[in-house]
């Protein structure tokens, strides 16, 4: 079995886990929750092995590099980080209904990666990409993005719970609004730290290859936009006491900015910028 087969399998692993968590939430089934946790943990381990295998395979074809260098590999790492971050949260807050809102992101990332829209082959690295700063950059960014994704999922959970009348049967299994609010905030704080590190390592990489640490290209600028946005959200909460529904919406808005930084910039803005050549 090679790494891409193993990674395709992990798509189904996360799909199963998401389904199990959803069942745990909808039917208050402890067994389904346990199945979700086991599926997530096993898939996470399988994915870890697959990443290791892909690293090994890259050396076999003479293009040896860590599996963190293109869209496909970053999506895989993104879903891996989400699973990792989610498992920590589940362990800390001891509530499996969170999985129904967080793990679908891990599944979507893998489903998109395996969809055929994304180039999956291991490609040799052009000179500019052969840098340890690139690895540091991708790792830090995607841990941050994973935290923001989880914050977004949990924010959806918050909105769902806050909209319905008190203690209606189904939503009662969700954690208290206060606890959900706290998880959203902590995830964003965590994401903000890693995003900062991601922008910094990106700047250092840029400087070591081209002699400019900041060049205002659309991708860089969008990462800064996202950063400004979350900085504002943290201040709004910490110094002006915003919380609850407002912060939940901002967590969703912030993640939209993350998705645009990560994906939209490549496919929407590059089109505008290549206009100069046409």
């Amino acid at each position, binding site marked *: 079995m090679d790494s891409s087969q193993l990674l395709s399998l992990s798509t189904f692993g996360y799909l199963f886990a998401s389904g199990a968590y959803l069942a745990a939430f909808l039917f208050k089934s402890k067994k389904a929750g346990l199945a979700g946790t086991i599926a997530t943990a096993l898939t996470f381990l399988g994915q870890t092995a697959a990443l290791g295998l892909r690293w090994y395979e890259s050396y076999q074809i003479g293009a040896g590099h860590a599996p963190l260098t293109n869209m496909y590999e970053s999506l895989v790492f993104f879903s891996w980080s989400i699973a990792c971050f989610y498992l920590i949260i589940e362990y800390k807050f001891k509530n499996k209904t969170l999985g129904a809102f967080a793990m679908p992101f891990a599944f979507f990332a893998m489903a998109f990666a395996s969809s055929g829209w994304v180039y999956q082959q291991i490609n040799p690295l052009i000179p500019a990409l052969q*840098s340890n700063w690139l690895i540091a950059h991708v790792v830090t960014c995607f841990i941050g993005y994973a935290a923001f994704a989880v914050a977004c999922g949990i924010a959806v959970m918050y909105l769902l719970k806050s909209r319905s009348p008190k203690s209606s049967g189904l939503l009662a299994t969700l954690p208290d609004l206060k606890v959900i609010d706290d998880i959203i905030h902590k995830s964003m704080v965590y994401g903000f730290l890693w995003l*900062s590190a991601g922008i910094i390592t990106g700047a250092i990489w840029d400087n070591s290859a081209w002699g400019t640490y900041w060049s205002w290209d659309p991708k860089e*600028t969008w990462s800064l936009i996202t950063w*400004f946005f979350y900085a504002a959200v943290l201040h709004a909460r910490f*110094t002006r006491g915003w919380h609850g529904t407002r912060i939940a919406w901002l967590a969703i808005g912030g993640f939209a900015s993350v998705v645009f930084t990560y994906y939209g910039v490549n496919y929407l803005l590059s089109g505008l910028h290549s206009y100069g050549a046409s």
Partner: protein
Amino acid sequence: MNKDKNSPWMFFASVKLTLFILFILAAASIIGTVLPQGEGAGAYTQFYMSKLDVSSQTANIMTNITFLLDLDTMYQSWWFRTLLLLLSANLIVCTIERLPDVWRLVVQDNLATDLDRIGNMRNRRHYTSSLTVEESCRQISEALKPLGWQTGQRQRDKATLLFAQKAPWSRLGVYVVHASILVIFIGALIGSIWGEKGGVNIPETLTTDKIYQFGTGSPVDLGFTVKCNWFHMERYPNGTPKTYASELVIIEDGDEVLTQVIDVNDPLKYKGWTFYQSSYQSHEKFIFSVVNNESKNEERFLAPPQKAVRWSDENLLFGIQELIPSSTPGSYKYKLLVADNKGGQNLYMIEDNQQITVKQPDGKLYTFHVKEFFSTGLQVGKDPGVWVVYIGCLLMLIGLTGAFFIFHKRIWILVRQEDDTTRILLAGTTNKNKAAFETEFNNLSDKVADINQIEAQ
């Protein structure tokens, strides 16, 4: 200073302004990612016509507005810089306004805390003990020590007050983050004032003592000479470029002071200048290095393909007869033709940047080395502010970690004799993450209860 609520000072100290600036910065920055930057008027008119489907008249007006508001170079524009300046002013005033209070909290004498306040803290627990006051204090201090709480002690009225804290300095974390932003701005400013950015192409074996500024194209003296010994490109089997490398030599007053091979992520640094490998140019010519193996006589020649080269000293005639694509896409092998001195011709296959030894009919041996002739494309920069920026980045990460994950925790233990029992009060506070502290406090208070026959009340 006028600290009236509506004074300019309080305006600049407010976090509302911060929120406003941060959201505006985020929103405004979008413009430059959608609108191409640094183009000419014609390009913008066309851009508006094709993307927004407006008439050429409207597009012209929009183009005028674009230039009026400097939207074509918006990140360097006066209004964008004003926003950054506002953010800096906001940060500085806010810090001056708040830091003194925070500093007081970091260094204050907590053994002087008002005793009533301790009794009213949210996290608190009362005990009685059969030990004497001194013995209780001693044993509690002993028990707390391994948990990282180092107690101090003072006599207050008729009671003894113990105090211990963790990480008071973490309160400064936020201010380190804020300062780091200013440090980064200062670094960027230094770079934009005293920095220099440009580029230069150096053909192999030649030198330069100037670079050419980006944008203006005007020459800048380096103050020394740079020579390119060679440029080399390596490819993966599928033809993708694998390495671009050049060997550069720094020459000062005719002396070669430094020789270094650079590649894309590994520049050369000398006297504040950094030389980055950024591109290359092929001249469709080839460098031949030929050596007479016996006499060690050596000579270099430059020639395009299919052109005969004569080395008169050795009476040698040669040239590349044909370029043959090699198995790696994008690279070539050469069919090297060498005339012998009896009128015959011999053909040899040789790979780029390889050598081959050829035997002439008279027994003389010559070694040929053939290589495509390139110019190396260097990006050259001087940025005295970059270290300031890096220090700012490091400060930011340290500050964020301090602000987010390290908390200032304080506990007080008040021990007093009342009739013939010893009464103990344990209380604690933290500045953040209250829920986690509550758990820690409960564990701590159980521990205090466990030891020394203390009973909870």
